C-alpha cells in the first residue's frame, strides 16, 4: 500500500534523511498545467497554459494578481493556491497601509515560505500541494521567485513549473543570456515560446488556453518612475502575442531580423 514505512506523514525522516510526504507534494505540482516566468531588467512576465476539464467547461485560471505590484502563477492544487494567495494579498495590503509602499517581493515570498515549512514539521498537517511563480517589482526592481511545497523559495532569472515543464526550462536555459535586456513584448514572446516547448503533441497555443501577465518598471507622463501594475491578459488580448510566435511567423522573423517587434513601452 505504501512505498515504504517512512512516507505516511511529514514528521518522519527516512533513513536517508528524506521526507517523502514533502516529495510527494512536489509531485502534485507536476500534475498542474505548465506555467513560465521570466524577469528582465525592466519587467517580469508570467505565461500559462489553462486547462478545461471538459469540452464545454470553462478554463481554470492560472495567473492571479496579488497587489498592484505582484502576481502569481500556480501549478498544482488550486484551492491550496487560493489560501496562499489570500494570505499574500492580506500581507501586501497590510504593508501598504502601514508603510505606504509596495511590499518588497522577497519579504512576501519569505513569508509564504515560512508558512509552508511549518506544514512539513508538524503531525496532522500536510504540505501545500502547489508550486508558485511569483513575479513582482519593488524598489530594487523586477523579481521572479519560485515557491515549492517544501517551503523552499528561490529567486530565478526565469523558470517553469508544472506538467512537462522540463522542456520549457531547457528553452529558458538556452536563451538565458538574452532575458536581462529584453523589453516587455520580447519577454512575453520568450515566455510563449518556452510554453510551446512543453505542449503535448498537436496541442497549440490558443486565445482560450493561454494567459499572459506583465508587471514592470514604467514611467508616468512626466518621466518619473511609476510601476506598470500587474495585469493579466486573456482571450483576444493575447491573440497578437500568440500570432507573433506562430511557427511560420518565426521563420519570417528570422529572415527579416529584429523588425519593429521589440516595442518597449
Amino acid at each position: 500500500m505504501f512505498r515504504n514505512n517512512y512516507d505516511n506523514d511529514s514528521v518522519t525522516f527516512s533513513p536517508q534523511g528524506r521526507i517523502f510526504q514533502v516529495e510527494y507534494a512536489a509531485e502534485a505540482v507536476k500534475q498542474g498545467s505548465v506555467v513560465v516566468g521570466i524577469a528582465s531588467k525592466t519587467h517580469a512576465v508570467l505565461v500559462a497554459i489553462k486547462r478545461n476539464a471538459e469540452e464545454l467547461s470553462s478554463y481554470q485560471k492560472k495567473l492571479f494578481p496579488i497587489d498592484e505590484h505582484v502576481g502569481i502563477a500556480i501549478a498544482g492544487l488550486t484551492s491550496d493556491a487560493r489560501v496562499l494567495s489570500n494570505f499574500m494579498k492580506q500581507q501586501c495590503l497590510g504593508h501598504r497601509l502601514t508603510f505606504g509602499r509596495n511590499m518588497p517581493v522577497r519579504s512576501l515570498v519569505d513569508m509564504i515560505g515560512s508558512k509552508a515549512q511549518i506544514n512539513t514539521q508538524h503531525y496532522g498537517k500536510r504540505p501545500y500541494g502547489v508550486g508558485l511563480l511569483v513575479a513582482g517589482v519593488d524598489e530594487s526592481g523586477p523579481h521572479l521567485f519560485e515557491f515549492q511545497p517544501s517551503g523552499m523559495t528561490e529567486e530565478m532569472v526565469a523558470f517553469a513549473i508544472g506538467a512537462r515543464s522540463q522542456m520549457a526550462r531547457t528553452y529558458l536555459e538556452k536563451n538565458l543570456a538574452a532575458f536581462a535586456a529584453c523589453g516587455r513584448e520580447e519577454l512575453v514572446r520568450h515566455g510563449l515560446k518556452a510554453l510551446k516547448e512543453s505542449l503535448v503533441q498537436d496541442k497549440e497555443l490558443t486565445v482560450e488556453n493561454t494567459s499572459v501577465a506583465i508587471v514592470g518598471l514604467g514611467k508616468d507622463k512626466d518621466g518619473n518612475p511609476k510601476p506598470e501594475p500587474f495585469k493579466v491578459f486573456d482571450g483576444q488580448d493575447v491573440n497578437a502575442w500568440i500570432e507573433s510566435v506562430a511557427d511560420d511567423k518565426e521563420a519570417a522573423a528570422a529572415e527579416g531580423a529584429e523588425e519593429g517587434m521589440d516595442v518597449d513601452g
Partner: protein
Amino acid sequence: MTSIGTGYDLANSIFSPDGRNFQVEYAVKAVENGGTSIGIRCKEGVVLAVEKVVASKLLKPGANKRIATVDRHIGVVYSGMVPDGRHFVDRARDEARSWRDTFKTPIPTADLASRMGGYMQAYTLYQSVRPFGITAIVGGFDSELEAPVDGEVGRGPSVGAGGKNPDKKHGGPFLYMIEPSGLYWGYYGAATGKGRQAAKAELEKLDLKGGADMSLLEAVKEAARIIHVAHDDSNDKEFELEMSWISGADGPTKGRHVEVPKEIREEAERLAKELLQDSSDEDNDKSSDKMEE
C-alpha cells in the same frame, strides 16, 4: 544503513532498546547531504562561509542568500534543509528581539546559542513534530565596549552608581554549532554539511586554538580556501561561495554582521583557486615522478 528498522525508527522521540533516537540520526543524514558550511573564530572576529550548490542555471546569481543576520552583531549559516534553516533563523530573530525587549541590550552570542539549542532539542521530544534537518553555525561579536542601552537618552552619571569602569574587558568573538539533537558546543573552527570531513581537517591545521593570531582578513581567505577544498569537483555541480564576517567595533564591520565585500571575496576566491591549482599540480608531479622510477 546499519541497524535500521525493527520499528524504533518510525517515530520521533522513541528510544530504541540501545538508547538511540533514530529520527534524530536520520535528520543528521539530511544535514550531511547539504552544501558545506564553516565558521572560523579568530581574535579580531568571526567569518562564516557556505558552499551554495547551484542546482539550476536558471537561479539568479548571487540573489539567494544563505547566511542570515539574526541581530546586528550575530549571523547564522546552516547546512541541510533550507526551509528548516529559515525557520531556525526566524526563531533566532524572535529570541534576539525578546532578549532586547526584556534586558534592553543586545543578546550575547552564548545566550542565543543556548536558547536555540533548547529550541532544537524540543523538536526531538515529541512524536507530533520532527527534528530540524539542519546543523546551524552561529557566529557573533559581543560588544567589547560599555553596552549602550536601547533607548538611552543621555550620558548618565560619570561617577558613583552607574559610573563606568574603563579597565574592564567585555565581549569578544564567539562561534557555536548546533546539531539536530539540540547539542551545541563553542568552536574555534566549525564545519558541517557534505564536505565537513575535509573542512575539519583543514580547520585543524590552522591552529586556531593555539597562539597563532590569525587576522580577520586571513580568516576570510582561509574560509574561501577551505570551502573550495571541501568541494568535490568531480561529483558536485558548480557552486557559489557566500561569506559574511563580524569584527569588533574598531574592525572593518564595526561590530556588525555583514556580507564580506565583493572585492575581498573575489580576491580570496582567486587565491583559493590558485592554491588548489598548485597543490593538484604538485600531486601530478609526484605521481609522474613515481611513474618514472
